[in-house]
Structures are given as C-alpha cells and as structure tokens.
C-alpha cells in the first residue's frame, strides 16, 4: 500500500460543481422531488444514487400494490415510471455515485467511477430511505450460519440476481413486508415453513393473512420469539419460545428477518442534523425542513417505513418548500417539538408550525382498540380524533387540521392515547 500522505490532497483537484438542488437518493421520494422541481422550471436538479440503478426499494419489490387503483403496477414498473418522469422533466439522475460526507453548509463530497467530486447546491434534499434491522442488530443469539437474510437482500437475490435461496424458510415478522418476503421465497421455489411474530396477531390486511394461512398453508406462530439460530456453516434450524413458556425447534435452512426498519441517517448525522428520538430520522417540520438550513428530508428516512405512494407524495410536498427557498423565502420559522407518549412510538413530521398542512403518520408499540388520540399543548387540548383499531407496524394517520391552534411560544405539543 502506498503511504497515506500523497493521496489525500489529490481528491480536491476538481473545483466544486454547482447545481440548484441536490437530492440524495433516487427512490420514490427523491425521484418525485426531482420531477416536481424540474417541471416547475428549476434548471439544475440532480439526483444521486449509490446503487447502479435508480428506483430505490421498489426496484426489487416484484409484487403489485404500487401505482394507483386505476393503474396498478409492480415495484419495478413503478420505479421506471418515476425515473422516466424525473428525466423527462429535465432532472439529471446519476447512479453509482455515493454522497460521502459534507463539504460545506450545502455541499457534498461524492465519489463514483469517474472519481471524486464536490457538488454545491442551493438546497439539499435527503431521501436516503430506510433498511431493515438485520439479525445482529436484533440481538438474536446463536451461531452465525449462512442462510440468514433480510427482505431487502432476499428480494434482490431472487428478483435481481436469480440466486438460489434455501428450501425451508422461516419468515420473522407478520407485517406487509413479511408477507412479501414469504411470496419471494415461494417464487424462488422454497417452502415457507412458518411465519413468527411476537405480537398476538398478523399486522396486515385480513385478506392477506388468510391467503397465506389457508391458500399457501403457512402457519403463523403468534406470541412467539425467535430465541436462537442453530447450525455451523449452513443454518440448520431455529429455536422459538411462546409467550406461555413452551419452546420448539423448527428445522429450516433459511431465515428472513423482515420489518423493524431503521432510517439510513448516516449523511444526516454526519451533517449534525438533529434526529427525532423516536423515528431516528431527521427531525422535520411540516415543510420537511431539517435543523440544518437549506437541508430538507423526505421519504422513509423520516418514517421507517411508509408506502412508496406516501414517499412519492412527500417528494411533491418537499418540492414546494424547496421552490419557496429558491425564491428567497426565509428558512427559519418558529416551530415547537411534536412528541408522542407511550404506547405511541413515533410521529413524523415531529416539529410543528401553525399552517403546516402535511398530514402526520404515527406508530404504536401495542394494539389499540379504537383509540382516541389527544393533541395537547401545555395542558390545552388542541384536537381529538377517534381512529380504527391500531396495530403495531401499520400506519396511523393524524390530520394537520389542528395546528393553527399551536402557540409557537409555548411548550412541546404532545400526542397521547386517551384512556377509554
């Protein structure tokens, strides 16, 4: 290896390149932002993606459920549609380019096959998405055999690379993404031995849960924890424990850890952007402003995770704020923190200003039967809203109708579950 000294200087040879808006991440949120900005006439809109192909997670979601009721699409088709829209509108989408770190208030160091480059922008949008927590991050004990996947890796292995997976698969989780993982495993010719969830019910539509159980005969083990991975070399099985203390061993050669999403917030953190302690993504207000002036955030990095449609809508929404900034609007505006109390886990956006119109999304840690949410500031009830039964890992919506009542000189606004 050559010495350290000679190298560092060289990467700054090229002067920074200027663009109007730099968007990091070419998933649904990033592409939608780019399309909207370019349509609105912003000349130099550039989207970077570190992958070799644009589209984000939908690239490898070969199931339906994307697009609209009238125009349903698979994930890859949806990704192509968004990419085409952005490029036709005049945005530049560059793949195989990694945004490494900040080079100034609104500048990023990047690298790709063409070498390093610093890009400076009038506004930056972080649309870096979210990933599933892998086995280690969930502290699942046992050996470290082959055959341990997340949904993201499984879908890419099967749909993008045509790789073989094992023959007997256990899916950990019972939310939408878990059922998608089970479908992918079946596509690859594997038998789904069981699905396992610590909760007392599946966290998907009744139709989907029934379909898996009755048509595909996949047993769902509720109230069940995965306690150990077994096997040297290849996975040979897993141990599970039911809430009532019973234990069992399931023979399988593949296990897929699904859900438990965490934002990919590295760039945000390296830029000193304040994070929301609940969602762990950048804290933003209704205009999707982060704490760093000129830096916006949109998509699953804010709320791990919502649907691609939500991310797309958010892209359009963040574009409006970017346009205002480019037109000379003030960045800073008074906001107060928006917090949730247990059993609610997080809310996004998580700062609030009067006049914010963007609807909120929340998550709960426990099942709530027809809950009533209270929005309170300094003991003052701003809003209450009854919801349908809320289940962990599924979206809980909350309107923004109440926020003209917020006192920006007051304390934090809290969302709580009213006692029945």
């Amino acid at each position, binding site marked *: 290896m050559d010495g350290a000294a000679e190298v560092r200087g060289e990467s700054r040879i090229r002067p920074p390149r200027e663009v109007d808006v730099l968007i990091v991440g070419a998933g649904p949120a990033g592409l939608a932002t780019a399309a909207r900005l370019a349509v609105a006439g912003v000349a130099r809109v550039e989207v970077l993606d570190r992958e070799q192909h644009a589209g984000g997670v939908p690239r490898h979601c070969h199931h339906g459920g994307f697009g609209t009721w009238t125009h349903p699409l698979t994930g890859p088709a949806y990704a192509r549609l968004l990419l085409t829209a952005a490029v036709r509108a005049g945005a530049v989408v560059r793949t195989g380019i990694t945004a490494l770190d900040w080079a100034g208030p609104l500048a990023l160091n990047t690298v790709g096959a063409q*070498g390093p480059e610093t890009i400076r922008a009038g506004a930056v949008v972080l649309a870096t998405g979210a990933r599933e927590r892998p086995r280690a991050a969930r*502290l699942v004990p046992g050996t470290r055999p082959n055959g341990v996947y997340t949904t993201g890796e499984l879908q890419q292995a099967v749909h993008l*690379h045509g790789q073989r997976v094992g023959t007997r698969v256990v899916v950990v989780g019972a939310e939408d993404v878990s059922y998608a993982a089970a479908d992918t495993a079946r596509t690859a010719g594997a038998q789904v031995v069981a699905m396992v969830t610590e909760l007392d019910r599946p966290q998907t539509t009744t139709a989907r849960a029934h379909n898996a159980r009755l048509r595909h005969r996949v047993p769902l083990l509720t109230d069940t924890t995965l306690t150990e991975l077994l096997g040297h070399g290849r996975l040979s099985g897993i141990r599970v424990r039911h809430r009532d203390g019973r234990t069992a061993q399931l023979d399988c050669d593949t296990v897929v850890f699904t859900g438990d999403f965490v934002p990919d917030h590295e760039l945000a953190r390296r830029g000193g952007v304040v994070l929301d302690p609940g969602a762990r993504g950048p804290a933003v207000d209704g205009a999707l402003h982060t704490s760093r002036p000129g830096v916006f955030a949109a998509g699953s990095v804010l709320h791990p995770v919502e649907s691609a449609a939500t991310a797309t809508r958010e892209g359009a929404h963040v574009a409006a704020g970017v346009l205002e900034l480019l037109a000379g609007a003030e960045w800073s505006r008074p906001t107060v923190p928006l917090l949730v109390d247990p059993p609610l886990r997080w809310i996004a956006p998580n700062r609030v200003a009067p006049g914010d119109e963007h609807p909120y999304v929340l998550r709960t840690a426990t099942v709530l039967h027809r809950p009533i949410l209270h929005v309170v500031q300094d003991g003052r009830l701003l809003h209450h809203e009854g919801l349908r039964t809320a289940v962990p890992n599924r979206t809980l919506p909350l309107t923004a109708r109440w926020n003209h009542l917020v006192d920006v000189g007051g304390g934090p606004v809290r969302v709580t579950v009213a006692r029945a």
Partner: protein
Amino acid sequence: MTVTANGPLPSRSYDVTVVGAGVVGCAIARELARRPSLRVAVVEAQDDVGQGTSKANTAILHTGFDAVPGSLEARLVREGSRQLAGYAAESGIPVERVGALLVAWDEEQLAALPHLAEKAVRNEYGDAHLIEPPELYAREPHLGPGALGALHVPGESIVCPWTTTLAYATQAVRQGVDLHLNSPVEQVGRRDGTHVLTTARGTLRTRWLVNAAGLHADTLDRHLGHDDFTVTPRRGQLIVFDKLARDLLHHILLPVPTALGKGVLVAPTVYGNLLLGPTAEDLHDKRATGSTAEGLAQLREKGARILPALLDEEITAVYAGLRAATDQDDYRITAHPEQAYVTVGGIRSTGLTASLAIAAHVTALLADTGLDLGPAVDLAPVGMPNLGEAYPRPYQRAELIAADPEYGTLVCHCERVTRGEIRDALASTVPPRSLDGLRRRTRARAGRCQGFYCGAAVRELFEEARTGT
C-alpha cells in the same frame, strides 16, 4: 504458489509441517519460508486461514505490560509486539496506537493500579502511569460517572487480525510453502523416522511436525503420546457497535483485573467501530461459538456503566470466539527432540501480538532439535489491501480511481468497499472460499446493513469468480 482445498494431499514428504493456519501457525510458516532449502506445508482443518481464535478476538496489539513477569509469554509478547508493529507498517496492516486506560470503578480496583504500574516496569514497559479522574474524563468525556482513576498505557494499539494472518499466509505461500485447507488431522503415526498424518484428504508425510492447532493442540499432543496440558475453550462474546458510535471513545478501555475476575473492555476497531466484550465462559465444546441471550445482556449491562451513550447506538454485529485457555499460566511451547516435534500450545489471547516472536522461538527450537534450517533469505515484502479507517481506502484515492474506475465503484455501501477490492481479493494469493472469507479480506457485508443493500450483489461477484463466468 500452492493453496489446495480439495483432492488428495501430495505424496512427497515435507521437511516441516505446521498443523493449524491460525495467526500463530501462519507466522511460523512464514518464518520457515525464509529457509528455501526446507519443504514446508501448513495443514488446516477449515476452508480458510485464521478461522479459529484468530478471527474472533479483541484485535488488540498488546504491549505486554500486564503479563506474568519472567514468563515465556511476557518475553514473546514484548518482542512480538515491537516486531508486529514494524511488520504492519511495511505490509499495510492497519494499526492505530490509541493507548489504553485501565479504569478503576471501585476502591479495590483503584488499589490494584499501582501494582499494575509496577508490573509494567518489571515487564520492561516504562510508559504506564496513573491518572486522576479529571484527566481521565478530559480524555474520555463520554465515560460513565463514578470512575476513581485509571492507569494509562499509551502503547496499547488496535490492529486488524484478519489482515495480519492473511499477510503471513500470503508471504509464506508466495515463498513456496504449501497451504492445504479442509484437512483436519485425524491421526498421527510415525514410520521410519517420518510423521504420517492421516487427514480428511488422505495422508501427509513430514520429517518435522509443529503443533499450532490452537483449541485442538491438546488433542494433537495426545496423538503424539503427551499429556502435558488441557485446552479449555473460553468463550468470549463480543458486540460490534455502529461506526457512528466511533467518536464516543478515544482509547481502549480495559478492565482492571481483580480477584473477582476480568471485566469487559470497550475498544475502537481499526474499521471504525466500537467493540464491547468479551464475556469469559469456560466451556467443554470446542465448537460452541454461538452467542447467548445471557451473555449479550451481561455485556450490555456492563457497557451501560462504562460508556452509557453506547447503548443508544445501533449494533452492527455480534460474534463469539473461543480462546485456548489451559490450566497453566503461560504458553506451552515444548520441543520433543526424540520425536522431531514441537508443541505450540496454550497460546491465549496474546497470540496475535506475540505471533512473530513465537515463530522465531519455534524455529530456533526446531534447529535445536536437529533440523538443518539451511541458509536464510529475505522475504519479498507484501502489500496488503488496507481495511483500516486511519489510512486511505481505495474509494478515497483519486489517482487509483483514475487508473481503474473499479476502485470508484462502490458495492458495499456501509463499509464503502469497491468492485476493485472485491475483484482483487477473489484473485489474491490466498483467495476466499466463502462469503465470510471475502468479508474478512474486504469488509464487504460487514457493515450496519449486513447485506440488506449489497448482500446479493456481493454474492453475485463471489459466485462469478468461483465459477469463472
């Protein structure tokens, strides 16, 4: 250059065969490679070098300040530490001399610090000194409350254990040593002054035999009729925290050993993570490299006291390694001249640090037992791919990317590993035979996503290289 992983072993007899391709076995092979008149082999049970204790440890390059003064271990750690630091610098093995702090959390530990400082002096290490809480907290602002003082050992360093083992093996193989993988030794006989090893891949003959079988050194020793020591596998579970935690810590935080045993350490890694561990569990099963709920809970509890903010960070990996503890408090390196055999047993957690000195010591013992080493040559230097954050990685090197764009094409995003590095590893002298082997050579898939983004793409590159498509 010969590395074999299947098929029958060569029938021609070797002069010296080393059993075990861990860091110690590979260091011995490298030292013997300097003697071109010797025909040398390494036989390894697993499919890669460094697959036992050498891959799952705390990755610390020790000064030897706390060894048992006067012991063989103390001398070899002292010598080996200096040698490895020099070797690492010339071979591109990442090392960071971050220094260690032995933090005292109670009066008993505080009272032990001066004795440790004296012990360091007896081990010819003069730089250890006591520091008071204000300096301790100035050095480590994120340290949990309640520390009473510390012993500062500035020479303690962190190192890449995988690259070290691989560098030794690479040099040895390039110089003509045969490395035979997937060859667990099942029996040892002796015929006409020659050892006959029965392995899973057939027999192998050798005039001299070196036992560097790590956890299995006692078993091999018994095959040769000795009953000198017993290896008790001591399991150490470790938690690797996200790189975003790296700034929480500047030094290695070592526990103060007391009558109640050793605590856990928190240390940076050369890859830019923080490491918490190890547990110390004496077991009987030499394959018990699994983590346990109790072990992980215990580590998190101790970590919360030492560095509270650490527990808020994401966990990147969990692993468990087995150290070769014996009933004696020193290495068990013994020459058996009548058998043309040297046992290198009981190399505990200091084996990485001492490896080069152990190799020189063992080579001298072989000469004492009658092996004619022949003339020595200098080995061609080896330049290992850099896995460390303190040195420029390929993606940071504009001139390298300009010459070959593959070094600007990132595949593993969390660890910023390029296609160029993966390609190089797959075509290297001692190539990986599994995705885990590729990870240890490049860090691909070793990051926070553990393959969510890149796992399938990395597997694709690996399979392409293996099938030659």
